[in-house]
């Protein structure tokens, strides 16, 4: 069973709205304070990347119930320029916006599962999952 909710990203205020949604969901799923901070931070980075690089996009939150496991899936999607070299953005310290944004490797470290699908000229979808321990 999946329950979903989402925030469309148009302005910097939507970045705030997306992470607030994520934090509230994380709390109600039962994540502890450290995982809540990880989830809130990951969403903030993903939403900011949409705002900075794609202009507009969407952060979607899904609750996961996989048998005995419970968790949360974060889907960041946009129809922006896409990422020409995914390997490069996954290198620590790589950022094209001049120091803003901790980058994808940082976000990956905050979650349990992380996947980037991207096509130049079409857009980028990033899926991140955090499981309740």
């Amino acid at each position, binding site marked *: 069973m999946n329950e979903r909710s989402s925030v469309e990203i148009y302005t*910097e*205020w939507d*970045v*705030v709205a997306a*992470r*607030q949604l994520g*934090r509230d969901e994380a709390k109600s799923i039962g994540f502890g*304070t*450290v995982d*809540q*901070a*990880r989830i*809130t*931070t990951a969403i*903030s*980075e993903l939403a*900011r990347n949409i705002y900075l690089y794609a202009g507009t996009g969407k952060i979607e939150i899904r609750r996961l119930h996989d048998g005995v496991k419970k968790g949360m899936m974060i889907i960041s999607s946009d129809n922006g320029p896409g990422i020409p070299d995914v390997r490069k953005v996954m290198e*620590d*310290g790589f950022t094209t916006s001049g*120091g*803003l*944004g*901790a*980058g994808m*490797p*940082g*976000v990956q*470290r*905050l979650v349990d599962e992380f996947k980037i699908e991207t096509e130049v000229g079409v857009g980028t979808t990033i899926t991140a999952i955090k499981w309740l321990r």
Partner: protein
Amino acid sequence: MNMRIPILKLYDTLIVSIQWELDDRTALQFQEDLMEKLHETEASGVLIDLTAIDFIDSFIAKVIGDVIQMSSLMGAKVVITGIQPAVAITLIELGIRLEGVLTALDLENGLDKLHKELED
């Protein structure tokens, strides 16, 4: 929506307690307000308390790092206090290093640290 963070003056120190989640505009407004207040009061120390902050992303980390550099240009030292365990853990996992930043667990220790720094 434009909430300003209050900056209090206590003798030669400015004290700031960030009590709610920082959005981009509030954070940048705070940078400006703090620099103006440093100029106006000639304070030599700044204490920024983050006890109420439950997460810090790369943007807020950059703002804090910049505030420390800017304050240094204005002749003031900054101590950051009250970083929560969850914030410390996520900042490091995210790959953000606030190097050379003076920190203390709480306001009291922060003021002590600041005064020791200013005596040197």
